[in-house]
């Protein structure tokens, strides 16, 4: 789907990161529309502003007219702004938001993964072939087990864990259960148009569908301490085959334990 020339022009001006998820087009569409609205209003006001300053400068207009502008067109401008905002809100922003937070895909059809943020890393937890996350507990925490995964739990035997590495298959919904061990962090996948605060004490579900393969970075968007600037991870959208073979290799590496 190629965007129309007006949309494309604004997209070229805005220069956001490449969009690589199914809902990114909705986000970008609204971004384009709202920036067009801003551009039109700012240009319109600026032209009027400059015209008035030139025409009514003291040299050209020595005696002021106290009556000022007549006519109701300012009301039309204000009304127009309101109408434009209502349209953006009701037909674009709210539906797009609702599809993010209400219309979760079923777990069976999705890649489900836990992401646990901490100062200053992203811990990733795949449930493995059984589709069930193994038990985690604070007592199992160690430098090599930052998730505190209980490997004696049968559900945990095939669980794959990584640090700062999130691999995902293309063309299939992803559900991330996001949490944090310590501070507020913000899980950001710029190309997916995904950003979600990880709030201590809560688990936040996020879902999206990657539509392009690529190798990108996970960013932290919420100040989380002195290492905030380097709380960077990597994520990769792979073909289903590549993802399956990666996951199989990771699972196989667990076997000796």
């Amino acid at each position, binding site marked *: 789907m190629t965007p129309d020339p007006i949309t494309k022009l604004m997209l070229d001006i805005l220069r*956001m*990161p490449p969009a690589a998820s199914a809902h990114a087009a909705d*986000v970008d569409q609204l*971004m384009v529309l*709202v*920036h067009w609205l*801003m551009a039109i209003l*700012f240009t319109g*006001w600026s032209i009027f*502003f400059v015209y*008035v300053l030139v025409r*009514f400068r*003291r040299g050209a*207009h*020595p005696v*002021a*007219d*106290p*009556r*000022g*502008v007549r006519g109701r067109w*300012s009301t039309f*401008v*204000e009304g127009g702004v309101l109408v434009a905002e209502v349209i*953006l*809100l009701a037909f*674009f*922003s*709210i539906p*797009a*938001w609702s599809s*993010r*937070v209400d219309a979760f895909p079923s777990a069976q059809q999705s890649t489900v993964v836990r992401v646990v943020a*901490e*100062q200053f890393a992203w811990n990733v937890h795949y449930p493995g072939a059984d589709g069930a996350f193994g038990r985690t507990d*604070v007592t199992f925490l160690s430098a090599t087990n930052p998730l505190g995964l209980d490997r004696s739990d049968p559900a945990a035997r095939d669980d794959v864990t990584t640090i700062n590495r999130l691999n995902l298959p293309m063309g299939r919904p992803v559900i991330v259960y996001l949490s944090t*061990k*310590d*501070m*507020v962090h*913000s899980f950001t996948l*710029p190309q997916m148009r995904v*950003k979600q*605060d990880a*709030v*201590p*004490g*809560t688990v936040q579900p996020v879902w999206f569908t990657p539509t392009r393969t690529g190798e990108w970075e996970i*960013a932290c*968007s*919420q*100040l*989380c*301490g*002195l*290492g*905030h*600037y*380097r709380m*960077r991870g990597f994520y990769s959208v792979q073909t289903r085959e590549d993802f399956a073979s990666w996951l199989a290799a990771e699972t196989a590496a667990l076997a000796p334990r």
Partner: protein
Amino acid sequence: MFLKHFFSTDHKVIGLLYAFTALFFLLVGFFLIVILRWQLAYPGQPVPVVGPLLGDANAPGGIILPEFYNQLGAMHGTIMVFLGVVPLAVGAFGNYLVPLQIGAPDMAFPRLNLGSYWFYLAGGVVMLSSFFVPGGAANNGWTSYPPLSDLSPTSGQTWWLVGMLCIILSSLLGSINIITTIVQLRAPGMTWFRMPFLVWAQFVTAFLLLLAFPALQAAAILQGMDRVAGTSFFLPSGLVVSGRPLDVSGGGNALLWQHLFWFLAHPEVYVLILPAMGIVAEIIANNTRKPLWGYRLMVYSLFVLGVLSFLVWAHHMFLTGMGTAISAFFQATTMIISIPSVVILTSLILSLWGGSIRFTTPMLFALAFLPMFGMGGLTGLPLGLATTDIPLHDTTYVVGHFHYVVAPGTIFALFAGIYYWFPRITGRMMNDTLGRMHFVGSLVSMNAIFMPMFVQGLAGVNRRLWDGGMEYAHAQGVLSLNVHMSIGAFALAFFQIFFIVNLFASLKQGRVASANPWDATTLEWSEDTASPRVYRDPYDYSPPGAPRDFVPQYVARVVSSGPAEG
């Protein structure tokens, strides 16, 4: 001799105390960000000139550590907002001008007024001192989100809370005073709709301060308890910090702080902007030589803004896990609140139509306020829509947005006010040439600083990064803008020299001004301030049949055909 001014209960003296203290803090806050901008432009390179003065704990070899970077950022925001802009806009302009403009003999509670200043000064001293405690000042953002702030190892965070409590107390005392003064002490004839727009703006602002700040006061006490008394108001159970389970009782809620903080901090945005609009309105009416267009509509818009500003706070929290219904509510209120802002801005621009515009120095700043505030307001739209907030939240786009509102917006209005009322205060004019150089230099350099922030933010560069985003691949294409922005900041610092020199030199050497040098209509320019009486609307400029192009409010003579007020 000098110290006696610190014990005066005269609203004019207190206003000036506020003014000089707030200008000092604006300079301090600006100084912090200039150092920070060096680090953003040249990460890991020693800060020139002042580097060795920063201390080995903060900047060994002059190289800013991430901990110190976070101090600079948090304290820049705190000092600019709470110790610089608001005290200047409300404490200084409100104290000095409100009684004069409504013809009151003084503030309603002069001692409370002095107390308000003292608490403000105490808050400022506490904030500045916190740089010198072990671990340094607060370094958790001006928003101080827990658990980071709760668990922050530096006692600077506790000092920050104490400082905030002093500042909040000061604001509460000040706002009660302004409200009471406006309600009770208006001169005979000063009906509500004869009040200058600046007085209306201060009136609504005072209500915002009075009603919003207690939420943060409560929150600051709770966070202080968490820090010193071992409570867990903002700490949920099960936290693990640096690999070790945190030894607290838990059961708290980290989001509670965000709600309490933003319940204050969004109305606070309007505390920053409403007095600025008031100052700009006064100066525009005076320098166009005509009444404000839509004065009543603007007053009503102030009230709508005031009420709605309490209903939008959670648009700062769209990404904390908000459902459709709540996000729709806060998006809707956020879109609605843009309308009264648009009404006021449009009215101010339309007020220029038909005028005889004098481009005096205060007018230049007031005029520049309009497109700059417009830019700040418009860039709020994609942040106020939850869907477009997803990519933009916590990026430099946000930083650009609110700096357009506050820096070339509010601070320009405050500069305009200083140039405009300086002759009322000192009897002398400020130098025009220096003023114009200050204006042009500041306008160009502020845009050079803040415009590229939108470009970086759209590219996905996050704010509050010690290395300015150098770590991230998506930032590489816009990374060089960091250097451009920092050069803009250094240029901005240079052009403030013109202002500082002008301010102090004009005190003694400025051209002597007449009592009413701008030919203004409002009461503060009256030579006879003993028992003023008010006979007309605030902006009776260029009425038909009048001998001159203005009739002050205190002049009784009725002109043959009075102007219709819009």
